[in-house]
């Protein structure tokens, strides 16, 4: 073979041969679906408030309901289709977090409840939890120091 290319040259060479994602269409889909998910959450929040729950309880009820919805839609095989259409619009909200835990749990059920479901449930959500909790601790420390 005569053609010799460094990895940089090859990367440049194939660039115009790769189909581009439909950025505008994807952004609009993400905006609309992400917005709709937030509307549902807002509706739950408002309803809970109208029943006279305090703010803390309202937040918990809303989060728990949305996690349930995400998990439920994953379980009946709908959330992956929403995700295919909406991209980040359905990954970023808390329903996406539920999806990232339920989908591996379903997938690895065949390997048993301990080494399958139990161990693999966190393969996607694990990093989010680790760095999310680490960041919150770090910011908590900074707040404590500055607050003094």
């Amino acid at each position, binding site marked *: 073979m005569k053609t010799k290319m460094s990895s940089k040259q*090859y990367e440049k060479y194939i660039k115009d041969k790769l189909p581009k994602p439909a950025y505008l269409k994807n952004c609009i889909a993400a905006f609309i679906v992400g917005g709709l998910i937030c509307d549902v959450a807002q509706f739950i929040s408002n309803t809970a408030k109208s029943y006279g729950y305090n703010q803390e309880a309202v937040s918990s009820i809303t989060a728990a309901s949305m996690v349930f919805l995400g998990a439920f839609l994953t379980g009946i095989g709908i959330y992956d289709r929403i995700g295919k259409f909406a991209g980040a619009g359905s990954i970023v909200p808390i329903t996406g977090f539920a999806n990232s835990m339920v989908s591996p749990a*379903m997938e690895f059920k065949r390997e048993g409840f301990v080494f399958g479901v139990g161990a693999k449930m966190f393969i996607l959500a694990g990093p989010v939890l680790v760095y999310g909790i680490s960041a919150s601790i770090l910011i908590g420390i900074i707040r404590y120091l500055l607050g003094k």
Partner: protein
Amino acid sequence: MRKKFLLGSDRMAGKRLGKQTLKFSSPPSVISNAAIAGPKEGEGPLSQYFDLILTDDYFGEDSWEKAESKMLKEAVKSAVKASGRSNTNIDFMFAGDLLNQIISSSFAARELQIPYIGLYGACSTMAESLCMGALMIDGGFAEAVVCATSSHFCSAERQYRFPLEQGVQRSPFTQWTVTGAGAAVVAEAGTGPYITHATIGKVLDFGIKDANNMGAAMAPAAVDTITAHLNETGRKPEYYDLIITGDLGKVGKAIILDMMPKEGFDITKVYNDCGSMIFDSEKQDTHAGGSGCGCAAVVLNGYIAKEMKRGNINKVLLIATGALLSPTTTWQGESIPCIAHAVAIENAIGVGV
């Protein structure tokens, strides 16, 4: 003395052309084929060529891995049956697949009880197994062998990528792993088609790190093997009715067509790619096309075998391409080494060059 060393020993005389190409002195014959395809593949443009189309991804099993192994086993069984032989009349089985420790093949071999040689060449396995089988026969060590491979969309996705139910968008250049298995029985005597040549590929790496961009990663290996084959046999691309790569998809196909003229060969008229043929990417939403061991396997043992039997295609060069990565190397940020093996399958021996 030096010259003799370069050409190899006398025993090899005429069997090796150049560095990579093998010429079989008594070309073994492909006497039967079997292609089993998944439901999605069965809805694609090549559905009429498959011997069995699964109605569901599980194939009556309780896991996708078991389903894949069963597909491979059934493909071998039906190819052996079509050859008019029984398992005991098959000397060796050459098989491989994508799953860790090539479990689909080994677990199928456990049931089949044919002396078994497991291969790993990722998606190049169909060409690799045919080449090894033909060598065994031409070398006089076997009278009949079976060569097989398989892949399954669901088992491959869970090993290499994401859980199926996870809501993610696939990049437009990703390929869809074919659910399917193919097997071919190759024998010393037969009425063709014959395996006349094989070109063993080198491992090439042009630095692609994105495991979703297989077509671009594998294309240079295919270009290298096609070029070596044509140079070493002295054949022109037009000698073949079809030069077909295994699973480069649309992206890899475009790269091949762009790179080959730079090597001095224009293959546009006779070139196609199994991955670009197996799905209707617009209707079936498969992005850049099919991939996986099963892709070349079902196209070869389905479409090509039947078209050769009908005499619509007489000379085929199949170049099956494999990406030799693992999930571990991807996580460690390694680029993707790739390989391509070619086998020339012809209805008649000794016609033309």
